[in-house]
């Protein structure tokens, strides 16, 4: 996969848990163009192991002199965000993928309802730049835990004015999805990025009100879960490899020197899908891509987030 060489131009502590990183090209040239909602995957070398984490681009798509991402510190995770917070300094060099958009705005929508929970605000930052430029009708509903965690509320207030609605959990403010989705004009699209419970609620409320599926857009990158170690066999490369507890199947495949396709690395896009040729155990599907029927068929697996409980799992790669 072709990558772009960038270096850290600036780091800003936005809240106690969120840091904002600015990347520029090492040779000072402009970065590739992107659309609102795009993300890049950053390669981090941590303790001799390569982590590849997806982050939404949050700058304006009109400005390609730099890419902006924000990272929330996740203590109980595999270490990518902690490394970004504690070890990354201005001037450090990284390889990132070209931007990919799995959360693009619906061009024909008459109105856009954006719903963000916590750090889920990031993909909306670039979308809002697009919506403002297009003069589109939109509302941003931004829920966060406490006033000090509303990372971008102030900045958004300047851009969005009365289109911004904040819900601060600590003072008892709640977003009522039934009210919000219950009386929107025809041609409205809803977008949600945030914690799983929020995404699930939006999907459920929209479905119950009879919103067509193609009017509901979600962005949810999962971090690969930590699990039990297991063994996999790669048919085409003729290798048997161990997947450690804190490594994803995709990372283990890459670490074994086998090139695998990927885009989001978060169970959303379906690019890394592998065919399961044989298995003697259970597949533990964690992705949002495969349908329930496909998951039950045990013929496909998303190695970026899914795991298995088995001795033998023969994959077509």
């Amino acid at each position, binding site marked *: 996969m072709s990558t772009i060489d960038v270096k850290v131009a600036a780091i800003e502590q936005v809240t106690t848990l969120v840091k904002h990183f600015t990347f520029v090209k090492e040779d000072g040239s402009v970065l590739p163009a992107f659309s609102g909602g795009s993300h890049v995957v950053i390669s981090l070398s941590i303790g001799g192991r390569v982590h590849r984490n997806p982050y939404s681009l949050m700058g304006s798509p009109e400005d390609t002199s730099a890419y902006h991402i924000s990272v929330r510190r996740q203590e109980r995770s595999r270490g990518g965000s902690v490394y970004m917070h504690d070890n990354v300094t201005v001037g450090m060099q990284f390889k990132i993928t070209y931007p990919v958009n799995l959360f693009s705005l619906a061009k024909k929508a008459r109105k856009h309802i954006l719903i963000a929970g916590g750090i889920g605000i990031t993909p909306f930052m670039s979308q809002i730049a697009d919506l403002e430029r297009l003069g589109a009708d939109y509302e941003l509903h931004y829920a966060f835990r406490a006033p000090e965690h509303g990372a971008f509320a102030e900045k958004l207030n300047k851009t969005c004015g009365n289109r911004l609605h904040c819900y601060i959990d600590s003072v008892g403010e709640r977003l009522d999805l039934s009210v919000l989705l219950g009386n929107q004009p025809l041609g409205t699209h809803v977008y949600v990025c945030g914690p799983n419970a929020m995404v699930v609620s939006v999907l459920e409320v929209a*479905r119950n*009100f009879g919103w*067509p599926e193609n009017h509901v857009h979600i962005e949810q990158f999962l971090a690969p879960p930590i699990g039990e170690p297991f063994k996999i066999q790669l048919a085409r490369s003729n290798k048997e490899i161990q997947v450690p507890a804190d490594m994803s199947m995709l990372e283990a495949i890459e670490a074994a020197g086998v090139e695998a396709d990927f885009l989001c690395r978060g169970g959303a896009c379906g690019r890394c899908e592998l065919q399961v040729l044989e298995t003697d155990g259970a597949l533990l599907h964690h992705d949002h891509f495969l349908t329930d029927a496909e998951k039950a068929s045990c013929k496909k697996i998303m190695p970026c987030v899914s795991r298995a409980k088995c001795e033998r799992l023969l994959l077509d790669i």
Partner: protein
Amino acid sequence: MERGYWIRSKPVYTSLVWHEKATSHLVLTQDDGGMALLKLFQLKHPKQAINVLYANNPSSKVNYAKTLEKVVPEGLQIFNTEQEVLCAFNDVLPTMFMGLRLYVAGSESFIWSVSECAKAHGIEDADIMKELTGTLARTVYCVHCKAITHDITTNIGKCCGCGRMLFVRDHFSRRLGAYMGLMVDAESPGVLPEIEEIYP
């Protein structure tokens, strides 16, 4: 035609059934679409509000309007022309909310006229349930003169704009609501394959 051959733009029509999840329902039908409407009301009625716009054809063999008045419990409006149905539809759309489910039954040209109105309000054609009734007659777009000829029932039809004999393809434009037609005898003028009625 080879088995398994399929032009992806060719629309797929189904039978109308009520959506279970909705905030309201709006059904647009025309002429023989009356039968699809009667079948729809044979099913368990949804709890939410229902509105029905029907374009009656007085010269039709079956008087669906009379039966519909008995069967449709609420929200039935009967019109004399398709155009009146489309006008009523245009008037009601701005007052509707997400969760409105749309159903349409009738000729292919009626179905895509409805879809075109809906599109102006941000409703995609995939969001509309469609049943084709009465006739398979095709609207055909001439790729040479760009004229649109209605009600072609044969594999080859004469363009109303330039008079060329057009082979009617399965390539369908949702925007125009028409199939692609291209000159069938361009290479050997006057030599035409047999003309058969295949879209009665």
